[in-house]
């Protein structure tokens, strides 16, 4: 039922106060905003994993880093609708920035990580101006081209990057001056987990903020969102740069924890695998990125063990099955299934 509109006189004075309800103000919190028990359980898994699989911590770090990288793609693809085939450009930039610092005498890891993220954000700014203008196909090709440019630039600049031999000879100081990066990858794992968790919280806050909501609106109808006051291009540039910084942080983590940066960190293969991870886990859900990265790398590890020659065949099969039968990735499929079960009960 509709009640009559409150004329100014009918509104009680306390409610009629014109407050500067800035775009950041959220008056009520929706369930989507609340930290759920399920999320706590999810984040306990990598902690338990640390104790349960001490022999797999290097693989674990790889998963955490890939998860952060996929999270970054989810921001621009799952939320803002920018499909990218060149996201490795920012991953690699972060990796080389952190790697170069570490091999030139700057050994402190946290500042190196920050530098990696900053370098990626810096190069992403001009790139983003090219990307946001286009439509889907245009963006795909522009990002693909940018990725190739970065790869070849690093290849040519062998004097700095080490070219095909890669960049090595890095030295990383103990984390917080206390925890050495040990041979078993214990520090690397916990460091990656900590960084991933903090940046995840940042992403989570971001996607539930009015800014993040407006990105979803832009993805679904950019004209409509513009007519409601959202500066579409500026918002897309912002999220692209933020995502690039996250990708750069992921690259820096990889450089620091493996003490090596290869050209493959900038390769098309890495961009493409990233896309696969995200689609596998489910886009636009944040957790899909993390689950997809874990599934992809675990499947790769297991399949490569079972079938060292043709493992990519099985990976491809899995991917096709997910896209055909579980739209929205693993998480989308799970949500669909849960909905059906609930529907049957009724």
């Amino acid at each position: 039922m509709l009640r009559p509109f409150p004329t100014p006189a009918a509104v009680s004075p306390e409610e009629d106060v014109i407050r500067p309800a800035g775009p950041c103000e959220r008056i009520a919190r929706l369930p989507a905003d609340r930290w759920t028990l399920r999320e706590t359980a999810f984040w306990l898994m990598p902690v338990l994993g640390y104790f349960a699989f001490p022999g797999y911590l290097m693989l674990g770090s790889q998963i955490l880093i890939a998860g952060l990288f996929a999270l970054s793609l989810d921001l621009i693809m799952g939320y803002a609708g920018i499909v990218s085939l060149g996201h490795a450009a920012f991953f690699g930039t972060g990796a080389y920035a952190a790697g170069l610092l570490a091999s030139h005498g700057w050994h402190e890891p946290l500042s190196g990580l920050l530098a990696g993220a900053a370098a990626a954000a810096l190069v992403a700014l001009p790139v983003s101006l090219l990307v946001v203008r286009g439509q889907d196909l245009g963006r795909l090709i522009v990002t693909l081209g940018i990725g190739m440019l970065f790869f070849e630039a690093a290849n040519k600049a062998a004097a700095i990057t080490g070219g095909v031999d890669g960049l090595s000879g890095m030295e990383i100081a103990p984390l917080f001056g206390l925890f050495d990066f040990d041979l078993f990858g214990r520090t690397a794992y916990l460091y990656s987990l900590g960084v991933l968790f903090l940046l995840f919280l940042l992403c989570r806050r971001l996607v539930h903020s009015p800014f993040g909501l407006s990105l979803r609106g832009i993805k679904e109808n950019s004209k409509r969102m513009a007519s409601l006051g959202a500066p579409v291009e500026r918002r897309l540039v912002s999220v692209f740069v933020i995502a690039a910084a996250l990708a750069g942080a992921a690259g820096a983590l990889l450089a620091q924890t493996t003490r090596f940066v290869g050209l493959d960190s900038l390769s098309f293969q890495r961009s493409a695998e990233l896309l696969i991870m995200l689609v596998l886990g489910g886009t636009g859900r944040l957790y899909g990125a993390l689950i997809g990265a874990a599934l992809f790398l675990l499947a790769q590890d297991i399949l490569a063990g079972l079938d060292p020659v043709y493992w990519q065949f099985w990976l491809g099969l899995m991917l096709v099955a997910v896209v055909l039968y579980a739209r929205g990735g693993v998480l989308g499929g799970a949500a669909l299934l849960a909905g059906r079960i609930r529907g049957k009960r009724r």
Partner: protein
Amino acid sequence: MSELLRLDNVTAGYGDGIVLDDVSFSLKEGDSLALLGRNGVGKTTLLVTLMGFTRLHKGRLAWRGRDLGGMPTFRRAHAGLGWVPQERLMFPSLSVEEHLTSVARPGRWTLKTVYRVFPRLRERRANLGNQLSGGEQQMLAIGRALMVNPSLLLLDEPMEGLAPIIVQELVSVIRDLTTGTGMAVIVVEQHARLALALTRQAIILDRGRIVHRSDSASLAHDDRLLQRLVAVA
């Protein structure tokens, strides 16, 4: 009251095509205008032109004396134009409340005041944009435009396809909006009498041109003119 919006000899359309031909009128702050005419005469195009989605071939659009013509769409929204499109266009992945908070700008319209006008939206606050009835979508479309705190609300056929009971509810809300808030309104409506009852002055368009202008009350009594130019049932 000072002048809010002014169109001088506006000729506009899509690409090279011309839909609006030499349209001029002005609107004062807090005023209300009914935009009438048959299907396809350019009513929606006029609203869309105000939002900056057409090509302005000739003429001038002024908003509080400032030129509106070259302004990007989002700045027009910031300046105070609130558009409620005919297709409503909800965002399927945003909840009702997220529709409102994602566009909020400072002013008298907040989540609280919008919910007070449309209590049904509060009940549906967690529903997604595509989980709403037609009437609820229209309420949300209006509520969402109000959250931007416009000085001029553009309503494009707000009653189209709605059940009579919902139409009644919306009419009372829109009447309150046009009278109690100091906000100006332009209503495009097929139901001419409805639009005339809600507004102070009226314009009839035919083939992109203004063919009649008068105050709404006297036009409402001119059956022959309405029959001829608007084809009212």
